[in-house]
């Protein structure tokens, strides 16, 4: 085990983090499963290191050359993976908790402390491991920050990941996010992203959210579900690429957007089914509701299929709330706002109903309640 390098300790940093997000320490007290990054560097003093093992790049190359990854990954891809990870300083191996409690990863971004935002952070989920991650992105910066993560989900493992941005992000922050997922045989990735703004008309935060997903092993399941609910002139751009390398893989993308005022969204998604990746089952679904005539969405689902025997579907809808449905609800005694709220809640259910983490579910429902005000 290589000693973690470039990690930051010290009371001044701790106090800075605490000032930035006061609830971190409180959470830390109640749960050991906390990992904290500041500008993409691990903050060791605030992290429960029992959640992690760390490997240097060189060791990861050894791992990916077949010593530790148990089947499912093609050799070419393994080499690619090794090359790719050369830039990253540390790959964290996530340990399954005995109680299978979720691990909370705080990603703090601040331009007041460390200028380096470019560090790539990798996580490896060993074979037959089940991990739930609550990833919370917290910002104390007005300049553009970035994050670049990759997740290797080994054979028979499952990752359930909830990504939440603080609603204050959308006030004035910009963030470029890239996340890559590499899945081994029989692995499962359930990823949820919630980009929920606030009711502030002056919101102007911009999130560029790139997701790259490679289904390398046989029989992988990849589910990416997301809700963007924006007001003001906030913007979320989702750029997604999913590649089916192997047989019997399923990938589902459900992206829902609600855009009010001058806010904007983008859904640019490409699913590639490579030659020989038969029995692929892919769904790309993007549904949007525009609550004002100034709100915009650019939706572009694409498919590239290089094999037979696949079941691939894609669809995109954008519109306003149905006037007949609003009248129907009002004729039952609901006010206009309540009727709109009920319809929006129903619209978003397709994502919310899949939330298994009660704490996250409550939090999302509260945030939506605040936005929808039913």
């Amino acid at each position: 085990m290589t000693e973690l390098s470039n990690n930051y300790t010290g009371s001044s940093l701790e106090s800075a983090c605490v000032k930035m997000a006061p609830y971190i320490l409180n959470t830390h007290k109640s749960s050991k499963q906390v990992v904290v990054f500041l500008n993409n560097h691990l903050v060791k003093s605030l992290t429960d290191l029992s959640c992690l093992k760390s490997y240097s790049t060189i060791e990861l190359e050894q791992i990916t050359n077949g010593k530790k990854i148990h089947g499912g990954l093609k050799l070419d891809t393994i080499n690619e993976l090794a090359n790719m990870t050369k830039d990253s300083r540390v790959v964290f191996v996530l340990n399954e908790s005995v109680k299978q409690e979720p691990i909370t990863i705080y990603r703090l971004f601040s331009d007041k402390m460390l200028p380096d935002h470019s560090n790539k952070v990798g996580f490896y989920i060993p074979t037959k491991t089940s991990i739930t991650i609550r990833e919370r992105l917290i910002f104390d910066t007005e300049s553009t920050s970035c994050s670049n993560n990759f997740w290797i989900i080994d054979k028979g493992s499952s990752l359930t990941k909830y990504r939440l941005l603080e609603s204050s992000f959308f006030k004035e922050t910009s963030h470029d996010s890239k996340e890559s997922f590499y899945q081994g045989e029989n692995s499962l990735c359930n990823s949820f992203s919630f980009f929920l703004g606030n009711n502030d008309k002056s919101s102007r935060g911009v999130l560029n959210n790139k997701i790259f997903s490679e289904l390398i092993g046989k029989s992988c399941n990849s589910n990416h579900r997301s809700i963007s609910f924006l007001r003001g002139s906030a913007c979320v751009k989702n750029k997604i690429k999913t590649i089916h390398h192997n047989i019997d893989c399923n990938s589902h993308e459900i992206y829902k957007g609600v855009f009010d005022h001058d806010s904007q969204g983008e859904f640019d998604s490409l699913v590639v089914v490579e030659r020989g990746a038969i029995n692929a089952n892919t769904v790309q679904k993007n549904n949007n509701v525009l609550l004002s005539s100034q709100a915009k969405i650019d939706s572009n689902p694409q498919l590239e299929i290089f094999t037979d025997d696949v079941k691939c579907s894609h669809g995109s809808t954008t519109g306003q709330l149905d006037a007949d449905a609003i009248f129907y609800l009002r004729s039952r005694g609901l006010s206009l706002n309540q009727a709109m709220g009920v319809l929006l809640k129903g619209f978003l259910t397709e994502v919310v109903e899949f939330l298994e983490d009660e704490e996250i579910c409550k939090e999302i429902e509260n945030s939506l309640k605040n936005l929808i005000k039913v």
Partner: protein
Amino acid sequence: MLKINNLHCNVNDTKVLKGLSLSVNEGEVHAIMGPNGSGKSTLASVIAGNENYEVTNGSVRFFDKDILDEAAEVRARMGVFMSFQYPVEIPGVTVSNFIKIAVNETRKARDLKKLSSAELLKLMRHNLDLLKMDHHFLSRSMNDGFSGGEKKRNEIFQLSMLEPKLAILDETDSGLDIDALKIVSSGVNSLRSEKRSFIIITHYQRLLDYIKPDHVHILHNGKIIKSGNASLALELEKNGYDGIIK
């Protein structure tokens, strides 16, 4: 209870109602029959407060209050209920959650205390039994994937929960098989009371075999051209509209 006087209404600049007058007293059941395009559904929508319909003249008074300027929800809270000919599908909103909001909003307007979830559930189950509906119905999304019959039964179920003073049933019998028609009719009959009135819009006499009306009106070209008792519907069945519209 309801007094409609000389009602004129346009839909997309087309005159649909052209001086319709109708009076409904408490506890009465009125059937409105008429050929396609005569204005039956428009009448229902105007009473319920659909803003897509432009009232150009006349008045609609409900318990002596002119309701034409009131929003649909205000009319609903006052006790007007419309059973839709084509109930809207609302995916993601369960019947029980929807009923909970609707019932408590209506009760709030009537200065009644909110019902707890347990009280509501008990009431919902009781009313579902009346309509011979499965309790699982409550956890399904509103009208989403419902058969035609289920949608109509759901409308009557909502009627039973909201306890309106005036219920307008817009072609509730359309799309129902004979067994479903009997169940829906028996549900409606069980909800009849001295204080609750019904306006039943239908094309066919068969619904009136099960729900006996006090008055039958023939609507043609935006006006009521003939009114009578239940025997008028039988006459209509025998002679068709051509025999009456001359």
